[in-house]
């Protein structure tokens, strides 16, 4: 029995690596198509923050001893310029242009997938441990077997790698794979209690794009309490009922030591990053110029070119008098949701991180499909808890439909002139609605799952209710 189990595990891991290699080969095939299939010019893929052309422009300006932010083309981090800038100009004879840059994106995707898998394993172990301590393993035996077939780590990693959005963002030469890698690194570090790694990932993710700053809350919960677990109430109820004095089965309470370590390391890494940026921009206005061009650009929504988000259409028509007010409204829209979700889902920090990522991927100033790829991949961590999600087929069809119609509407509007901006904005609105439905249904499915666990623990010992 054990041998079979081991063999099954081996075959499972073997096929996982098969799939990973297959995805790398698929990406390489797409990269070798001429001009990367023109994906880099799609507004869904490349936004003013993630565009490859703008990175090349910023690097060229830097080489000419001008500020990389001159001309309002490049709005990213100067560290990315030093890292990826030389790759934008290097050409190898006989190979497609930007091959090296595409390889970097592919490597970033693979590393993200490996980290997602490791975090998923952590989550699964924590889940099993919590089920054991609640003594409901037998009742969930059916789902336990399901675990062995497809663990959440493998599922999430494969969904991330084979998601068309991820592939398109990788082949389309955007910087999203690297931003996603930073976020996943942060979550991995927090789940595995590697505080310096978590702090590093968080600092880099915030530095590259502003919004992952709100992930500090799930990271604090992860470091304080540990990975996802049913609510603490259940453990206390169980102990009260059975009057078991076995305290070792209780989960650990909230501990502040890792949080102080995290704060220290976050400060250290941010000082390091800011010093490096300051040195590299010393002659061009220093850090204030950098903040104005990166964070200022993100927050003031200066560029109104169409993308798959909802802000551009609105800010194209808002009067100047109200512009600041509505900027505040749109950004506070994200901030308002932090506290209630944190209160309700504090026992499930990874799911909280998923919900935050989904929210800011939808409501950020310049969304792209690369951002959606991140949370769709992380959805795989919760395949077991979210098995009963409502409208799953509708959402799947909706995503497929939007990803097919959005380029069509864009072509109708821009290239053929038979449509107008409303056509394109309609698909963007539908996309936002789908994301909202996904978030809402996901949260309610997770809460239903918790409710189910509570029923299982408080019910009299009976036959398995699965």
């Amino acid at each position, binding site marked *: 029995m054990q041998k079979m189990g081991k063999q099954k595990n081996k075959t499972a891991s073997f096929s996982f690596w098969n799939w990973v290699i297959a995805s790398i080969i698929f990406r390489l095939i797409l990269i070798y198509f001429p001009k990367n299939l023109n994906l880099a010019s799609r507004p869904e893929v490349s936004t003013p923050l993630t565009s490859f052309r703008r990175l090349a422009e910023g690097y060229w300006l830097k080489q000419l*001893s001008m500020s990389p932010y001159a001309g309002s083309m490049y709005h990213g981090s*100067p*560290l990315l310029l*030093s*890292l990826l800038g030389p790759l934008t100009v290097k050409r190898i004879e006989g190979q497609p242009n930007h091959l090296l840059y595409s390889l970097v994106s592919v490597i970033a995707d693979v590393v993200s997938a490996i980290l997602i898998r490791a975090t998923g394993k952590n989550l699964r172990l924590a889940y099993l441990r919590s089920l054991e301590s609640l003594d409901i393993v037998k009742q969930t035996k059916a789902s336990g077997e399901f675990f062995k077939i497809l663990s959440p780590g493998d599922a999430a990693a494969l969904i991330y790698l084979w998601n068309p959005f991820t592939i398109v963002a990788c082949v389309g030469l955007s910087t999203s794979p690297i931003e996603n890698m930073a976020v996943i690194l942060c979550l991995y*570090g927090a789940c595995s*209690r*590697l*505080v*310096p*790694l978590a702090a*590093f990932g968080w600092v880099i993710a915030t530095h590259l794009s502003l919004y992952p700053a709100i992930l500090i809350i799930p990271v604090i919960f992860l470091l304080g309490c540990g990975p996802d677990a049913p609510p603490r109430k259940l453990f206390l109820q169980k102990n009260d009922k059975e009057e078991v004095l076995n305290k070792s089965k209780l989960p650990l309470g909230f501990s502040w030591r890792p949080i102080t*370590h995290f704060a220290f*390391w976050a400060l250290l890494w941010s000082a*390091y990053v800011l*010093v*490096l940026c300051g*040195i*590299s921009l*010393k*002659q061009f206005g220093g850090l204030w110029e950098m903040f104005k061009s990166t964070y200022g650009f993100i927050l003031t929504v200066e560029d109104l070119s169409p993308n798959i988000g909802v802000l551009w259409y609105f800010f194209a028509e808002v009067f100047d008098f109200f512009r600041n007010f509505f900027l505040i409204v749109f950004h506070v829209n994200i901030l308002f949701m932090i506290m209630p979700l944190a209160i309700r889902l504090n026992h499930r920090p990874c799911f909280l991180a998923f919900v935050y990522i989904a929210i800011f991927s939808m409501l950020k100033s310049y969304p792209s499909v690369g951002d959606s790829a991140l949370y769709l991949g992380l959805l795989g961590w919760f395949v077991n808890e979210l098995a009963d999600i409502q409208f799953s087929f509708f959402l799947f069809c909706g995503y497929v439909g939007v990803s097919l119609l959005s380029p069509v509407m864009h072509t109708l509007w821009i290239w053929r002139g038979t449509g107008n901006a409303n056509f394109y904005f309609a698909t963007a609105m539908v996309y936002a609605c789908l994301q909202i439905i996904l978030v809402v249904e996901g949260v309610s499915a997770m809460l239903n799952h918790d409710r189910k666990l509570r029923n299982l623990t408080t019910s009299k010992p009976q036959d398995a209710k699965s």
Partner: protein
Amino acid sequence: MATFINSKTIFRLLVLPCLLLYSSIAHNSSSVEATMHTNNWAVLVCTSRFWFNYRHMANTLSLYRTVKRLGIPDERIILMLADDMACNTRNKYPAQVFNNENHRLNLYGDNVEVDYRGYEVTVENFLRVLTGRHETSVPRSKRLLSDEGSHILLYMTGHGGDEFLKFQDSEELQSHDLADAVKQMKEKLRFKELLIMVDTCQAATLFNQLQSPGVLAIGSSMRGENSYSHHLDSDVGVSVVDRFTYYTLAFFERLNIYDNASLSSLFSSYNPSMLMSTAYCRRDLYQRRLEEVPVTNFFGSVMETIHTDAAYKALSRKDSGRFKAQMSLDQSVHHHERRTLINVNDQDEILNTKAEDQQGASTCPFTSFYEKLRKGENVDSLVNYGLVAMLPLLGVSSWLFQ
């Protein structure tokens, strides 16, 4: 009592001149320029359209050619041509513009970069160019990106009159508009010295309202006088050049990029009987003596070369004094000779290179590294080292602090 009153009045009498003296000293010291002449710009404007105003286009293009020949690059020339003569349907020689009936020079050549063309040449755009107040969408090639160390040549030609200049046959630039724009430029430190050269009828009246210091204005005719064309080209069918510009070009054709001819020699080359008008030069706003200003200060672009190995950095003010002294020294040495390009090295660099050459072994690597950092060299490699060092630091810290 009388003496007391006397001393008080004497005191009061002395106070006023002291105040005047103090204010004049302050004014003088403030008018001493601490900036260094770093670049030259040219704004060349032709304001007339229609085929019979061919000569105005030829004037502007001739001056464009001269200014380019003497060293100002296209990036620092704003050329505004109100109409297209080269490709005009009435032009017998398509894509060619001549300023002489011998057709020796094709002014339109291969290398003409027109920044404002046709209907874009308006009074509004002209004033926007001068003051630098553009829409955000205007590209850099259409902007006058001068700074406080710039010498600007502003050449305008077309039809003009008493205190106005006609643009496009439909609007006019008045002398107070021009004076206002120049005043704005001075406030915003957009030039160090400005030479305005105008070739129209009654050109001198256009300068009546100028007040800003550092401005030298040359006009082709006085109030009540017309400026005439030089000759008619019977082949092309119209007059091809104006007298004032013709004699200006005659002066410049004798020069090359290294010559030291002064502005006073330019101005004294204008002969009223040949020009059939009196050329006028307004010098009261210009502090320097015309005998010591070479024409290439405005019409060409000869700079002393400062060799550094670092990426470009604007010179700080404390260095400018040092270089100015060297420049004047060299000028006095090569006064009537061919001027050579000067290599002026940073003092530190001379010491460093000498030390390294002689000794062979450099000084302590930390101090040389610190020197390099201070001078801003190798910033990129430092950032790269920092980025690369991040990864092992991350690994080590994660491993240690599990």
